[in-house]
């Protein structure tokens, strides 16, 4: 690990004043400290925002759900209102990592995780994502069993944030604050695909801090669910995960969001799957058709063709779970 300065802040202004000059924001520190210990990142300064009280808190109103970025995954998972009205989000927060990690990990940190790719996370390997001059993506012709099966021609990483999946499906917005002011960014614009920038995964600029996450109130009849699949249930990274938000009118689906987590380098919505569901009665056949449609453009690599099958299953089972037609899948994580 490199030597670094550590600044403990109590207010947003204090934190903003410390940003810049190679500073990195530290909240729960779950992913960041791992990356530092493995010599993948070398921040000169850590700006600790864990003690900025104004970044905590969960508020539910008629407009929607206001989440402080320091809300822990456990707080989100255990919140009765979120469980009731934003169930995909509580599913996602409640099934990430382990109970111990969920007690430390924050929502802001969860969506700001760096990607999963063992080449990216190896000290000994350079790749184009690391910006060290290499223009290779080793995963494409290498060991890629956990890598992206869509949009993977530039960089085949996957983004592991489970909460980003429902947040994208629920049209959430992220509030970014800098010395220049605030801006709201839709989740659909928050992540940057590798084609646009192979180095940065998000639109967050140096000097900006996530100061809130807002989820608009669900339309009447909304039902949602999230499920995540791994090789094992205890503490595993997802190999497929799906978030589904359905606006139901009786058995009829008026509107659908189908979001795929680790299918592509960033979480993506599947318009094809949504089209299959919209205006239809939800049953197993439609749900399966949605799963198939979502995978029609998949471009699996040499070792991850199985993820295409797995995503089809994840989507159909999560659609049925959201629609209340299936129990939570025992094959899903935790």
């Amino acid at each position: 690990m490199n030597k670094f300065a550590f600044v403990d802040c109590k207010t947003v202004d204090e934190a903003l004043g410390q940003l810049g000059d190679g500073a990195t924001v530290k909240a729960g520190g779950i992913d960041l400290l791992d990356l530092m210990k493995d010599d993948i990142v070398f921040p000169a300064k850590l700006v600790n925002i864990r003690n900025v009280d104004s970044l905590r808190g969960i508020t539910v109103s008629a407009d929607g759900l206001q989440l402080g970025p320091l809300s822990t995954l456990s707080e989100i998972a255990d919140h009765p209102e979120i469980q009731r009205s934003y169930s995909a989000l509580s599913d996602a927060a409640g099934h990430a990592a382990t109970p111990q990690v969920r007690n430390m990990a924050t929502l802001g940190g969860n969506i700001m995780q760096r990607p999963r790719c063992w080449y990216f996370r190896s000290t000994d390997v350079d790749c184009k994502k690391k910006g060290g001059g290499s223009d290779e993506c080793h995963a494409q012709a290498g060991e890629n069993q956990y890598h992206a099966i869509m949009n993977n021609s530039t960089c085949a990483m996957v983004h592991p944030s489970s909460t980003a999946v429902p947040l994208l499906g629920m049209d959430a917005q992220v509030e970014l604050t800098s010395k220049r002011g605030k801006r709201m960014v839709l989740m659909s614009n928050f992540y940057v695909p590798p084609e646009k920038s192979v180095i940065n995964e998000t639109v967050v600029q140096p000097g900006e801090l996530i100061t809130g996450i807002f989820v608009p109130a669900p339309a009447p009849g909304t039902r949602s669910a999230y499920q995540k699949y791994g090789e094992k249930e205890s503490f595993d990274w997802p190999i497929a995960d799906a978030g589904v938000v359905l606006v139901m009118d009786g058995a009829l689906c008026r509107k659908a969001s189908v979001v795929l987590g680790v299918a592509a380098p960033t979480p993506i919505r599947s318009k094809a799957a949504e089209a299959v569901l919209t205006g239809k009665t939800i049953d197993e056949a439609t749900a399966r058709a949605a799963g198939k449609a979502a995978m029609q453009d998949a471009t699996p690599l040499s070792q991850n063709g199985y993820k295409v099958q797995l995503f089809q299953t994840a989507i159909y089972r999560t659609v049925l779970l959201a629609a209340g037609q299936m129990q939570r899948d025992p094959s899903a994580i935790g």
Partner: protein
Amino acid sequence: MAPETATLEGQQVAATPAKQPTRTDNFVFGIPQDGLQTKQREVPLDEPPPLPPNSELTYIGKPTQRYDGPAKATGKGKYTADVQLPGMLYARMVDATIPHGHIMSIDTSAAEKLPGVRAVYVIEHVYGVAELRNPKLDGPSRYPTIRYAGQPIAGVAATTQQIADDAAKLVKVRYDAKPFVVDRTEARATDAPAVFPGPADEAGSAGGGGGPADVPQKGNVHGPERRKRGDTAKGFAEADVLVESEYFTQVQTHSALETHGFVVDWKPDEVTVYASTQGTSSVRSEFADVFKLPKSKIRVITEYMGGGFGAKFGAGNEGVVAANLSRKANAPVKLMLDRRQEHIVSNRPDSHQMLKIGAKSDGTLTAIQLTSYGTAGVGTGAGTAGPATNMYKCPNLLTDEYDVFTNAGPGAAFRAPGHPQGCFAFEQTIDELAVKLNMDPLALREKIDESPARKVERQLILERTNWRNRKSAGSDPGPIKHGMGIAQSVWYRFVNMDSSCEVRVLRDGSVELMSAVQDLGGGTKTILAQIVGEEFGMAPANVVIRIGDTRYPIGPDSGGSVTAGSITPAVRDAAYQAKGKLFAAVAPALGTTADNLATQNGRVVFKNDPSKSYSLRQVTAKLPTDEISARATRVAEYSKDRLTYGGVDFVELAVDTETGRIHVEKVFGAHDCGRPINPTGVISQINGGMLQGISYALFEQRIMDDKSGYMLNANLENYKILGAREVPEIEVALIENYIAMSSTDAAGIGESAGIITLAAAIGNAFYNATGVRMRRIPMTPANVLAGLGKVQREVMA
């Protein structure tokens, strides 16, 4: 490893040696379920009388709380990683960043200049790997040839771990890189890069592993080691049914919770070595060899041990580096591997096995043929023929085992070396045979298996599991399919005669046991306390057990499940003899003779007058000296019979055919380890073996990058090990199997404890669930969906 060819170093299946006075004793013999019998044996005169069955004993055979459980649970138990000595330095190993090549130069100057760095040592010889039969072929170099990424190169010692870690990064190594190969199949090609420039062999450790040295080598292919019995061509010709099969297993790393490591305090008079080891004796021997020291000047201490699974014997590179650093810095040095290094230091080799079995229509086996290829990286020891050779009655057998060298970390003995791989292939092929013969898999084994213990164990499976309700293969409708399967294991009775101890009785009534034997976590301290306690009528928790220190009488290295079978007879003998000395010393003061004294219900009584009864303390108070003691060494086995142990494990599972996830729901195991001394400890080891077996079957695999030669998942995030949610319902039935071989009849359970069978049992249950045979582990979603034909698998190993 067949009993007839088994050569665990320093261990022997001992027979009664040259004439010494003996007497004839009658021993309890057999398995209670079959009706116990009596067996006559000639035993040396100073042996204690035969033990009755467990049901008649006070402490032996009774569930007993782990002797050091509270110390472990409260953190009082100090492992090697916890050792702190005054002035101790911390070290980090520098290892190779290329998989193959020569070191041109090593520049340690920047590391040495870093404030806090006290010593840097560059390795001269690499231990634990195969060595060239002709070392000159490597060419002249100051440095060992690099043959795998992660090979140790140097060590750095500093005043803090952080400084040592930083300094390790400052050691600059210049390489002349050579072509390399990390894939077993590619390494077999005639034009593959040669890992060694000529034939090379690896000796086994005290835990087994290693491979044969007298076999041919072509390119990277070392072998075959051929074993032959009868005439397989004739056997196959006589068969009514033939089964041919092909199976693949992966590389599993040991992943001990406590990484490999040492604290070495090099002093001119004595070198003190705190070692995370399975063999204090093996560490002392290798230190003596490497440093040309008399063994008497080396002290090895292993009080608590955080897991070894076969990979922790001898000094190893870590011990040698720590010792050199300590000598150079004139201070104690702690060197523990980091987690990445722990994954690279040792592993269970992979395998590609081709089996052919012939049988008569009634199931009688006529021939078995096995060809196996496996890579132990830069080591050898990938053979898998143990189960095929030693499980069933078959007159004709031919096995060819090949090691394939690759530029990857060395294999090492790993809990039942060769057997989990071998069993995965062999016990599934036996199941395939049962399908072809239209026989119940248990009934087929009943026909071909001569082991009385496994016969009883199969009966327990029938009585206590759902086996009779097993449905035909793949008959469940819907995507979730349920199935049941069984598999059997075989392991061998090895005995290490370097098993000694001393029992002291003090005037205040306390009793101490001392031996250099170490407790790996299997519960050795507990069983020794039970045995001493039984002799003295004293609760085991009150016996003081001091082990894991070579200042005490020599103990056996713990590999191949030898510990309980080797050391417990010496302990009982010493306790019995110490008691004899005590009685002789106090009898005059008690007004009787020694032979009139006995222990009964925790008291010392007169045999001829039960009303005369004393506490042990009242008796020891009469000792004329403050302490008496007796030392004993393992007496030879009472018979030349070569015994094996075995278990039968049953698995019930569900396969989700749309996600490729396997849910193991229930495991029932029936197991044999001679006379169980502490059923709690034995069952605990079996639980652990089963979980490690499930983990091997479903999750664990080393993933190598073909292009860089690195292990990509040398961490605990992507090297996946079973966790709490993957633990099924487990039930263990322990059978007592009295063998009349020693004064305790104890045996170890480490190897045959489920690690051997679970992958095969899961494979057989998978077949029963789906009608599809899984030929590859780990059974991850990727491999399962490919096995079910739902995904085209593009990369075949």
